[in-house]
């Protein structure tokens, strides 16, 4: 167990339910999370799994029903209006915002800089999100991906210790996504703790030190992307084409099988060795709980 001083975020037994006309819906059903200072932590899960509710409780937007929450040593649910010191150390990139439309990129970034005790230089933040060319363009005129990068700029302008990113790369083209990943990595290199919710498994795999999978308000597993769901121990699949027919076999030691095939066939047609992707593992994890609930 980590000592609490190394933890940026410590959540124990978190619960939250909503009462609607249809009845009471449990959104978060007993979540424990320990996020270390300086790591990139991804939260994965299907829509409605409780990701956003959890993160919004950590961000101080929502109250909880039960559990202990500590973010940078403070309880976000108990800060009330006197939370400016704490807010100064938190950066938030929300899912979709459509404000500041009548301002230019520079005007909005330099204005938000005035809210913080220790802001970064607006020009260099604009450069780091790749919007230098759009510096004097109205926010209204930006493309979806450019807007998202502005959201990130507004999230990091205050030099946060923790940055929350909710679905940050929705609407990005592959090139922009790679540039964005580099930006996030450089923030980690400067010591920022990053909490990321995402639908994109390649993004979690590329960025995250650890991932948590949430379904139905519970954590299924917390692990590195490489070991999630026993992925590193899963059997590899060796496939090849023999006499025009595709053959498969599963093996814990695929190299041995490949050598055997090579000895037997000489030239092995369309040889492929695959391990389950993060996506395969993830889908089987959320699939299992759905079957479990149906019983």
């Amino acid at each position: 167990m980590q000592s609490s001083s190394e933890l940026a975020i410590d959540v124990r037994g978190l619960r939250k339910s909503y009462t609607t006309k249809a009845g009471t819906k449990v959104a978060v059903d007993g979540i424990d999370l320990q996020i270390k200072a300086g790591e990139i932590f991804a939260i994965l899960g299907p829509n409605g799994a409780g990701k956003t509710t959890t993160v919004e409780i950590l961000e101080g937007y929502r109250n909880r029903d039960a559990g202990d929450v500590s973010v940078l040593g403070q309880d976000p649910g108990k800060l009330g209006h006197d939370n400016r010191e704490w807010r100064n150390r938190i950066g938030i990139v929300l899912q979709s915002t459509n404000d500041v439309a009548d301002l230019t990129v520079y005007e909005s970034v330099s204005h938000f800089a005035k809210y913080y005790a220790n802001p970064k230089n607006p020009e260099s933040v604009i450069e780091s999100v790749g919007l230098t060319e759009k510096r004097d363009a109205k926010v209204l005129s930006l493309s979806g991906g450019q807007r998202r990068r502005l959201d990130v700029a507004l999230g990091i302008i205050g030099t946060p210790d923790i940055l929350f990113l909710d679905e940050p790369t929705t609407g990005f083209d592959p090139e922009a996504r790679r540039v964005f990943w580099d930006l996030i990595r450089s923030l980690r290199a400067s010591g920022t703790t990053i909490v990321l919710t995402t639908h994109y498994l390649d993004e979690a795999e590329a960025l995250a030190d650890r991932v948590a999978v949430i379904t139905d308000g519970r954590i299924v597993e917390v692990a590195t992307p490489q070991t999630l769901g026993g992925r590193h121990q899963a059997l590899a699949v060796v496939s090849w084409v023999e006499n025009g027919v595709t053959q498969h076999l599963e093996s814990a030691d695929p190299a041995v099988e490949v050598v055997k095939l090579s000895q037997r066939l000489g030239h092995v047609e369309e040889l492929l060795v695959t391990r389950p992707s993060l996506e395969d593992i993830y889908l089987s994890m959320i699939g299992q709980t759905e079957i479990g609930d149906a019983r």
Partner: protein
Amino acid sequence: MKNPSILKVGIARGGIEIKMFLRQRESVVFTLFFPVLLLFIFGSVFKNNIAPGVSFSQYFVAGMVASGLVNTGFQQLAIMIPIERDFGALKRLRGTPMSPISYFIGKSIVVTASMLFQVAILIVAGRLFFGLHLPSTADRWIRFGWLVILGSICSTVLGIAFSSIPKTGRGASAVVSPIVIVLQFLSGVFFVFSSLPSWMQQFAALFPLKWLTQGMRSVFLPNTFAMKEPAHSWEIPKIAIILGVWTVIGTLWATRSFKWSDK
């Protein structure tokens, strides 16, 4: 590291709010020039005197100055804030160290600036085209000054308070505008107040606009006209008290009910 002061951030918000306001041209034209437009229409239609030495335009300017404060403060805020809420602007601000008080200071600055501009062009247009008589004594100007200040604070806090009522930005205008228009009719902006049925006068007396228009009449109309008021006097202390009470109610209501997001 110390956070920047609440006042300093509030002033920065005021600057950026004014910038954003001026860039929405339709809304600039509508809010700033609408009262002048109404003055031209009403002033051209009703050319008669409503009392010896009191033209309709003179009466109407008093009413329009009062309702201008309600338009730019109450109406504009009660419509704009739900729209900002829909756009996620308020939620984003809530996630920064900016104090809510700075946000309210910023709103007051943009509202005050547009009120001053609106009142100025109304008076200039009235003077140039409709022979408006300006207040002739210092104490009338002083009264005008505190009525504008108290009226705009009252209107601003009530606008912020009322912004929690419309559920969506799109519906806000439909909820807010009829209330303002009905109050304008009942409070003696478009009609001479003493000509309204007494139940209407009593109902209007519950709301601040009636008192603000009465106060503005005391600034722009001759003292002989005070005899036409329901109490046969301008009731200046009562105006100050009622506007003050509404300001307190509005402040308490605003601080309790303000919503940063629709959830």
